[in-house]
């Protein structure tokens, strides 16, 4: 249901309940709406679902989300006052079996609207096209520097520098978010964390695709790598044949003199191709 429709209906319901003095119904509705909104936020943030069978309360779930995001990005999604108000209202609501004083009902509705206003980003859809290009630029940036200086797999001398810059940005965003929650800044903080993690552990990082593979710019630029694989395949083949002949020499030593040229040919050409592949296609990855 659209928010506008909900608002209109809610307005009407509040008016009707006021007339009938049926505040219990309003209390229940305010809790259901808040509970549903919290479920939605949890799902969007990729947190486990609220354990309703175990009667996990709304405020407990909010605290869980806060704990998780404090650890992951040093950001508390829900402010402490908000959680405390929910706790207060919820405990009275449960204790009184659905009865809630009017001021608490008002608080619950304002919490519901506060949650709705948060516009929490959907982590599952976090990387959009724009960010993919940003990601590609990040890779290109590190690639530019790593061509001559790379020492370890998938890492460059400049990776710590990039990571440092990312951490700085991340900390500044976290500071801003501590003061007031901003969906855009939060999304940015999450994204920075993701890039940081992917830089720290490049092997496990995957690039998310929106459309078909052929429409992806990173894929289009990466098709040239296939030539590299062609060279790699040839070098593997030649080196394998060379190893085969070396094995033959060890098993049948009388062939030692005859096989020398062949070994030189296979290992030489194979090695050259491998070297060319590493220099041209591997070092700049």
């Amino acid at each position, binding site marked *: 249901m659209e928010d506008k429709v*909900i608002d209109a*209906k*809610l307005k*009407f*319901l509040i008016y*009707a*309940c006021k*007339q009938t003095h*049926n505040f219990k*119904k309003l209390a229940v*509705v305010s809790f*259901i*709406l808040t*509970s*549903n909104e919290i*479920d*939605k936020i949890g*799902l*969007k943030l990729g947190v486990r679902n*609220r354990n309703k069978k175990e009667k996990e309360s709304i405020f407990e779930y909010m605290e869980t989300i806060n704990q998780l995001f404090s650890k992951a990005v040093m950001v508390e999604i829900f402010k402490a006052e908000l959680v405390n108000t929910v706790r207060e209202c919820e405990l009275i609501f449960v204790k009184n079996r659905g009865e809630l004083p009017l001021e608490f009902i008002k608080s619950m509705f304002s919490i519901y609207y506060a949650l709705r206003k948060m516009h929490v980003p*959907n982590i*599952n*859809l976090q*990387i959009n096209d724009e960010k993919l290009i940003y990601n590609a630029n990040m890779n290109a940036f590190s690639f530019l520097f790593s061509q001559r200086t790379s020492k370890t797999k998938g890492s460059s001398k400049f990776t710590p520098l990039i990571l440092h810059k990312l951490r700085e940005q991340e900390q500044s965003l976290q500071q801003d978010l501590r003061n007031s929650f901003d969906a855009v800044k939060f999304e940015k903080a999450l994204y920075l964390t993701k890039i940081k993690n992917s830089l720290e552990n490049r092997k496990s990082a*995957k*690039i*998310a*695709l*929106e459309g*078909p*593979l*052929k429409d*992806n710019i*990173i*894929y*289009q630029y*990466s*098709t040239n*790598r*296939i*030539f590299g*694989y*062609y060279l*790699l*395949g*040839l070098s*593997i*083949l030649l080196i*394998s*044949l060379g*190893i*085969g*002949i070396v*094995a*033959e020499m060890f*098993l*049948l030593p009388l*062939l030692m003199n*005859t096989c020398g040229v*062949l070994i030189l040919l296979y290992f030489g050409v194979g090695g050259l191709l491998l070297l060319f592949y590493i220099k041209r296609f591997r070092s700049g990855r």
Partner: protein
Amino acid sequence: MMSRITLLFKIFFICGIFISFTSFFLDWYIFQVNTATDELLVSWRYNIIAGWTTPFIEDSGINQLLRPYALSIPLAVNLIFMGAIVLSLYGLIFKDIENTDEMKSFIKFNYSNLGVLIFNGFYGFVFPVMYLIPNTLYFPTFTITQLDSGVISYYSIGIGYILQLIAFSLNFPYVAFYMDTMMKFEKRTHTLENKMENVLEHLQEPLDLDKLIAQETLQLEGE
């Protein structure tokens, strides 16, 4: 449409697969002994399916005497290889990884492609090292002339084996590239939002505001 580069290597891969398949029916190793007058004394040809065969109709004693040892490559290996070839060929002809919205369904084709490549490699490397050399069948090509008798022995890999090597070099770029691509890219399904809505439907408590309003309106009218 595929990009020209990937199309080129896809054609390479199709050729590689056909060459692989064809190689099953050709000679993989040839062993011949000729006299000084170029008379054929011994002739054995090895085929991956049929084993050692000789062109002699009436087999002479010396031909039988110099018959090479049986190279026992398990039949199951050949059958798995053929299965992988068929699956890869199906994937190549009827599926297009670049245009698909279901990238996960390509995993099995990618693995079958990898299977074909591994078998190419197995035959290219393991066949000489594990089967030929231990049986004193020289690799790749040797001619031994016995000076006293003038008998010439030819040991040579056959066209089937050479085709297998060519197939490996043709198959490698396409298979490696798409294995790498599958590892690097993950498909985000377009239905993710729909899926989330479905999950939310199950997760959230149902709230029929219309019904609640109607109940209150009825009560008001009753009063």
